[in-house]
């Protein structure tokens, strides 16, 4: 994002001095580098014309709430991408967290018959520990055996899914969907933070928007204001150089994945209460949305590049597109095709920047 800002003024000045051929190329480059934003702007305009309710307050609050719900997982995956890696176990970890959260908060518990509703801090701690452990496994195999992140997280994705399925078989549940969570837990997450009065009635902003904002701030501080954050960017941009420069590369990789795990945990913890019904497929394909959001927001697969603001913009734009398609009454099945195309296009545009420079 800043890169664009830095280059723009000099480009404008230089544009006039160029030959027509160079000018055409410069303009084309400018369009290509911002293609994702241009496409999204066009989508917004198109949808708003077709269905003006798209830009109404309830719709916008809905988009912001969904963005808040998806932001922690995107930030987790973002850290992995900055390391020049990826994490395809993210969605299953969210599922694990959601199942644990729900399982410990049922009013009539079939998983653990006779278990009282647990205090919320205990539940959160269980979820964070469980997902941090998965992250630890991910990071450990990457750091110590230099395995490709894709291979490691593919394995843990399968393992975590298996664990979730087994978890859902506990007690007399027999793999059934979990619903009927305690009021306290649901309120903790979705109770209105404040209510906006609009012409079409009151619109509430749920509490988890605040939680998400706090977490995002925390991640921003960690990425930008701690040695660990600096080391993460360093390892992502040049692992060898980081090793020579006194960075503990293994520790950095492991910590990034542990932190990612905890962020997935929080996502799952919020999602269980938000959706109110959880089963083994909860979280399926969440990593696809998260990865798409990151690449739209300029967190590059080249490694070492990416900002928290990028992740926020990415998630927001993605939710705008989904909401827009919804307003156009597009068949939900098309969403997958759209997501796939977005990842493909966003990555191509991103890589193009680096190809040109050679």
């Amino acid at each position: 994002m800043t890169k664009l800002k830095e280059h723009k003024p000099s480009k404008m000045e230089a544009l006039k001095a160029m030959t027509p051929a160079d000018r055409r190329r410069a303009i084309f480059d400018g369009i290509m580098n911002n293609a994702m934003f241009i496409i999204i702007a066009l989508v917004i305009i198109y949808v708003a014309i077709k269905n003006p309710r798209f830009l109404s307050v309830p719709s916008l609050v809905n988009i912001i709430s969904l963005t808040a719900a998806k932001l922690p997982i995107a930030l987790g995956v973002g850290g992995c991408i900055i390391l020049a890696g990826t994490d395809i176990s993210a969605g299953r970890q969210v599922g694990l967290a959601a199942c644990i959260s729900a399982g410990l908060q049922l009013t009539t518990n079939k998983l653990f018959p006779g278990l009282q509703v647990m205090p919320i801090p205990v539940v959160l701690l269980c979820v964070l520990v469980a997902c941090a452990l998965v992250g630890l496994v991910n990071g450990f195999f990457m750091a110590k055996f230099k395995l490709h992140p894709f291979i490691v997280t593919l394995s843990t994705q399968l393992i975590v899914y298996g664990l979730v399925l087994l978890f859902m078989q506990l007690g007399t549940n027999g793999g059934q969907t979990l619903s009927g969570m305690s009021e306290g837990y649901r309120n903790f997450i979705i109770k209105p933070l404040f209510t906006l009065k609009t012409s079409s009635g009151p619109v509430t902003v749920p509490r988890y928007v605040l939680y998400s904002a706090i977490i995002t701030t925390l991640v921003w501080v960690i990425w930008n204001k701690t040695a660990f954050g600096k080391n993460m960017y360093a390892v992502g941009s040049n692992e060898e150089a980081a090793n020579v420069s006194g960075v503990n590369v293994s520790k950095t990789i492991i910590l990034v994945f542990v932190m990612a795990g905890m962020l997935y945990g929080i996502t799952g913890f919020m999602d269980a209460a938000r959706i109110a019904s959880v089963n083994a497929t909860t979280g399926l394909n969440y990593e696809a949305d998260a990865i798409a959001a990151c690449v739209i927001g300029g967190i590059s697969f080249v490694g070492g590049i990416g900002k928290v603001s990028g992740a926020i913009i990415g998630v927001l734009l993605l939710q705008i597109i989904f909401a827009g398609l919804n307003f156009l009454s597009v068949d939900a099945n098309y969403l997958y095709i759209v997501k796939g195309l977005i990842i493909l296009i966003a990555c191509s545009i991103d890589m193009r920047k680096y190809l040109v420079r050679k």
Partner: protein
Amino acid sequence: MDKNNETVLLRMEGITKEFPGVKALDGVNLTVRAGTVHALMGENGAGKSTLMKCLFGVYSKDAGHIYLEGQEVNFKNSKEALEHGVAMVHQELNQALKRNVMDNMWLGRFPMTGPFTSEKKMYDATMEVFNDLGINVNPKTIMSTMPVSQRQMVEIAKAVSFNSKVIVFDEPTSSLTETEVEHLFKIINMLRDRGCGIIYISHKMAEIKRISDDITVMRDGQWVATRPAAELEMGDIIKLMVGRELTNQFPPKTNVPGETYLKVEHLTGMYNQLKDVSFEAKRGEVLGLAGLDSSGRTEVLESIFGIRTRKEGTITLDGKPCKNRNSGESIKNGFALLTEERRATGIFGVRNIRENTVISSLNRHKKFGPFLSSKSQVEDTQYYIDAMRTKTPSQETQIRSLSGGNQQKVIIGRWLLTEPEVLLLDEPTRGIDVGAKYEIYQLILNLANEGKTVLMVSSEMPELLGVCDRILVMSGGRLAGEVDAKNTTQEEIMTLAAKYV
């Protein structure tokens, strides 16, 4: 082909290339006669590689003409240039490392038998070129198993195999040993005798004087002079290149070595050929490490710094044993290592100058618990930008957009911020232009004057003789001997370097 020396093979006239805000080339001329070696010289950033990129169509020139044997040409890419007999041996090798030598030679133009590639034809054709050039490499060797120098030879053979009339060598000797340089020169002389025109880009003065017929000097994107090599002395060339007189290549030596400070005993590598290396270094001393490529010079530094596993060996600093098991520990113990390959193990290319500067000394900035102060990071970075006179638009500039010399200054700044007592410098001036080299020599001597111990590896012997107090000579992973820099000769060092080969 005409062997008349006056036949002009390649003529570039008034080549101009502008980038937004910068005039990279301004009416540059270059005329290469058949059967001659034409050296192209200039500091980093003078426009040598931009000129070559215009020739090969990597950049489109804004103005000017290129004539090949009298015909105007305008190549769109290097493939087209190759087809017209213009080839380039790149400084940085682009090879398919996991494939073998002959695959790399014939990539993109495999000899065929019917619809199938023919291994036999490929082998024979490769051997023919190798025999012709006197290269002793098995065409079936996998690229990645060969040393860089041999890979470079393959690259040269590939350029020759196109029956090229004009061949550009871009810093071909930067990773070659003395004997390999001799071999390369033999090949170049042979090509010259066949009537090829050679464009030779290098920073090494002695080589240029030996090999070239004509010299063209560029400065700041402009053509400065083209003269017969015989008419120019080394001093003249430097003067033309920097636009001012460099009276001395090396600053005066003012450091006085004190008492013994660093002791290295029985250093032996676990996974490399390093064997039983022991030496001592004093406070305020610049200790050189000479030797051929892969003689273990780099391994000595990296083993001391703990990024190579030691099988045996102790390191004692000021009487205290140092374990140095990893870079973090070594930094705490007061060591710093400037690595040889700046791109691969030095810079964080996509990150900015500030982050590249502070990465090894983040603890200095922990002003509020675990949180880093931005202000102190900015101050530290600015201090070293000023102190080293690093040329950069801002602290937020990506380091990869700086020139090699400026990148090196940033990395040296990074290490000085760790407040080291012992500096391990591996080829500190590689790929850096004359002016910046002088500054780095001065810096090394200043550090010695402050009482720091400097260990310096270099392939350029004049540099070692000019800057060091003593020189250790490595050979075949062992310490072959030690010489006093004031009373030794290059011959003595070379003899020692060949001791265990």
